[in-house]
C-alpha cells in the first residue's frame, strides 16, 4: 500500500516548508501555506501549477481548494505561466502622485503588452495592480525580479530592462 511516485515537491522545497512549519503549532500546518507557495513558485519559474498546489495541499494536510483559494487571492502568487522577468510597478498613492501612471503607460507601450500580460518572447511579465511596496520616498518605483528601482524616468526604465536577457 505504498506510493512510489516521485514527489512533486523538490527536496529543497520540502526543507524550506519544514523550516516554516517549525514556527507553528503541530495542528496549524496550514499557517505555512503562504511560505510554501512562495517557495514552490520560486522553483517553478515564478508560477504555480495545479499539480504543485495539490502537492502543497497534501504536504500541509489541507483541502486542495483551500490552497487554490490562497493562490488565487494573493497578487504575488501566479497561477498561470509568466515571462522570465517579473516587473511590478507600484501604483499606490505616493507613486501615483509622483507619476506612476505615466510609468505604467510607457512600459506598456515599450513592451507592447498590458499589465497582467507577458511578452510573446517570454522575456517580461508586467504585473497587474501592484500595491504599495513601502518605498514611498523614492516614487515612482518598481520592483523587477525582487529588486527595487526608484525615481523612475523613461530612460532609467530603458536601461533597467535592457540589461535583462
Amino acid at each position: 500500500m505504498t506510493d512510489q511516485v516521485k514527489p512533486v515537491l523538490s527536496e529543497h522545497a520540502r526543507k524550506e516548508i519544514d523550516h516554516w512549519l517549525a514556527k507553528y503549532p503541530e495542528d496549524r500546518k496550514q499557517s505555512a501555506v503562504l511560505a510554501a507557495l512562495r517557495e514552490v513558485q520560486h522553483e517553478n519559474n515564478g508560477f504555480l501549477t495545479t499539480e504543485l498546489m495539490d502537492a502543497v495541499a497534501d504536504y500541509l494536510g489541507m483541502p486542495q481548494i483551500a490552497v487554490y483559494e490562497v493562490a488565487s487571492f494573493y497578487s504575488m502568487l501566479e497561477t498561470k505561466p509568466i515571462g522570465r522577468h517579473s516587473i511590478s510597478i507600484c501604483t499606490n498613492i505616493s507613486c501615483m502622485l509622483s507619476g506612476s501612471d505615466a510609468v505604467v503607460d510607457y512600459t506598456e507601450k515599450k513592451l507592447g503588452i498590458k499589465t497582467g500580460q507577458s511578452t510573446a518572447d517570454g522575456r517580461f511579465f508586467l504585473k497587474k495592480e501592484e500595491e504599495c511596496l513601502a518605498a514611498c520616498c523614492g516614487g515612482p518605483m518598481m520592483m523587477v525580479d525582487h529588486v527595487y528601482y526608484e525615481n523612475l524616468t523613461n530612460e532609467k526604465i530603458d536601461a533597467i530592462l535592457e540589461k535583462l536577457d
Partner: protein
Amino acid sequence: MTDDTITIEVDGKPLQARKGQMLIEVTDANDIYIPRFCYHKKLTIAANCRMCLVQVEKAPKPLPACATPVMDGMKVQTRSAYARDAQKAVMEFLLINHPLDCPICDQGGECELQDLAMGYGSDVSRYQEKKRVVKDKNIGPLVQTEMTRCIHCTRCVRFGEEIAGLRELGATGRSEFMEIGTYVEKSMVSELSGNVIDVCPVGALTSKPFRFSARTWEMTQYPGIAPHDGTGSNIHFHVKHDVVKRVVPAENEAINEVWLSDRDRFSYEGLYSQDRLTVPMVKENGVWRETSWEAALDQVASRMQKPVGATASQLGALISPTATSEEAWLMQKLVRAAGSNNIDHRLHQSDFTDAAHDPAFPWLGQAIPELEQLDTVLLIGAWPRKEQPLLNLRLRKAALRGANIMVVNTIDYDFNYKISDKLISDPVTLIHDVAAVLKAVSEISGNKIESGKLLEAVVVNDKHRAIASKLAAGKKSAILAGNQFMAHTQYSTLRYLAGHIASLSASSFGYLGESANEAGCWLAGAIPHRGTGAKKIDQPGLNARSMMEQKLSTYLLFNIEPELDCANAALAMASLQNAETVIAFTPYKSASLLQVANIMLPIAIYAENEGSMINVAGQSQVYSACVPAQGEARPGWKILRVLANRLGVAASEYQSVEAVRNELNTVISSVTPDNRADWVRPEALPSVPGGILRTTEIPMNSVDTLVRRAEALQQTADVADGAVHINSNLAGKLRLNGSSKLVAQQQGSALELNYVLDNRLPDNTVLIQAAHPATSALGAWFGEITLRKL
C-alpha cells in the same frame, strides 16, 4: 442557578433571550423577520452578505443581526427608516452584478434574492456599467451551476467544510474576480452534495436532473419517507401533473435535521424508468404476455394452493426490506396461512446461526441524536459515510467534539472525520481483530466472560489494547455494526464478540441499519423464526439462504431482483430457475425476473405507495401515496389483501392501509428494542486461509431496485463497477498491467473480469462489489477466491 436570561427590546417589543445568542436567533424565535442570505442556522456565521443590518441603539452604524450578540437592555429597530435604508443599500449592491432575468432562471419563484428584492430592491436600477459574467463549470451529474448568479454568501462553501466534511467548493480570486467553484474542473463527490442546492439562496446552484422541468407554484408538496437506508429521513415530494419532479428534505431534528443524502434526494428518477411493469404478466411456454389482474391473481392463487398441506414447506417468500410494514405483515400472514414459515427479508445476510438470540430487530442502540453525544465509538464492518450518510453526520459531530472514532474494517475507507484507531485486514483476520479487542477489554476492565477456550490463542497487540483502553475509559461509548458486519459469513461470531466488547466496556451495542424498513420487517414477522411482534415460533421456517439452498418449488419475491439483491446471487438464480413457480411482485421488468419468474404483478412503490416504515432507531413513520401508481400497478398491501381472500385467509376486513396498520400496531407497539442477549459461544474462531480472500460492499447508489434506475445517481462514482479491486502489491504479484484482464474463480464458477487498482485493500484481499450483473455469478460475498492473469 445563575440566570442566563436577559431582556432585549426589538421594534418596541420586549423579548427574552439567552446571553450570547445572536440577535437573529432571537428574532427568528420570535417571528420577527430580518432579511438574510449568508446566515443559516446550521452553519457558522460569516456576516458577509450584510443583508441583515439593523439599527441598534447607541451603535454608531448599522449592525449585522447574524453576528451581533444580544446584551441586556439592548434596543433594536429592524424596520426603522435607518435600518431600511441600510438594507436597501445592501440590496442595491447585491443586484449590481446579479442578472435581472428571473423568468429564465430555474430558481425563479423560490429564490431568496428575488423575494427580498421585491421588498428591499428599487424599481429602477441606477447601474449602467457591464455586469460580471462567470463561466460555468461542470461539477458533476447532480448539481447544476450558473455562477453568474452567485452572490458570494459562501453558504455552500461552509456547508462543505462544516457539515459534509469535504471541502469541494471554495472562493477563489479576489474582489470583483472572486468566484465560487471547484477551481479545477471536477465533479463533487460528497454523498451530501445535493444539499448545496437547498442552502444556495439564489439560482447559482440548482438541481441538474430537475432543471427547467417545473416551477415552484405549479407543484404540490407532499410528505414522504426516504427509502434507501435505515435512517428514514423525512422528505417532501414536489409533484406536478401527478409526476414526482423532485425531492427535498423535510426538517426533522430527531432524524435528518435539515439535510438529505444525494441518494435520497435523486432516487425519484427511478420511478420513471423505461422498464416499469405496468400490467400483470404471465409467462406461458416461455413467452411473456400481458394479462388482467383477475386472471393473474387466479393463477397465483392456484399455484400457491398447490403446496398447502404435505408440501407446504415447498413455499418460500423473500421480501425486500424496503417494503412497508403493512406489506411485510400481510405477506407473512399469507405465507404462514399457507402452512409455511419460509419468509425472510434478510437478503444480504449469509450466517443465520444463533438465530434464537437475534434481537427483536437490529436496533441502533440509542436514539439518532444521541450519536452526537458519544465520546468513543468502535465501528465494525462499517462505512457509515456512504451507507448511512445522515447517521454519519451525527458521528462526525461527535468526532469534531473530540470523540475517539475507531474502525475495524476490511477496506481502508475514507472517513470525513478523524479516525483515532484503525485495523484493516481481510474478512477472516477481522474476526481475530475483534476477538483480540474483546480479550484486551477483558484484561483492562478486569471483567471476565465465560469465553471458554475461544480467546486463548488470540494474540493481542498494542493496537487492540489502544482500542480497548479507549472503550473502557469512554463515558458514553458505543459499538456500531455496519453493513459488512451483518452480511459477514461469520455474523454470529462477530455479534458474540462485539456484543461482549460492549457489555464489558459498558458501551451500547447498535446496528447502523442497512435498509429502510428492516425493523418493520422484523417486527411484522417477515422472518422465519419469529411471528409478529417478535413472538417465538416453535418450528422456524427456512431463512433467506436456506430457501435457496433447499431448492423449493414455489417462491414469492417482493420487490427483489435476485441477481442483484441476494447475498449469493448465483445460488439464488439457480434455485429460482429450477423452481416450478416464481411469483414476482415487482415494480420493474428486471432482466433476472423475466428469466426466472412465471408471473409478474406490478406493484406501486415509494411515492405511489402508502404505509409505514420503522427506522433503525425504532421510530415508526407513516406516509401516503402522492402520485397515482403507473398503469395498473397497485399498492402491495391491496394485492396481498385480495390474494389473502382468494386463498381463504381472512383479510377482507381491511378497508384501508390504516386498518392494516392499526391491527399490526396493537401487536408490535409494545415491543421494546434490546440488542443484548446471551449469545451462544462459537466453537472456535475460523482460521485464516493462506490464499486471497474476497470482500464485498454494495456501493451506495446500487442498493435497491429504485436507486439502481435513478439516472443521475448512476452517473456518480458510487455505483457497482463489476471489476476486481486489487491493491498494487497484489497486482504486481499477479503481473497485472494496463488493460490486462484477470480470471476470478470462486466456488466453481470462473469469470473474466477487469481490475482496478484500489490501495484501500490489504494485500490478501480483493473487493468485488455486489449488485452488478457482471459479477453476480461468482456467488458468496466473502470467501476464498483465486485470481490469475488472463
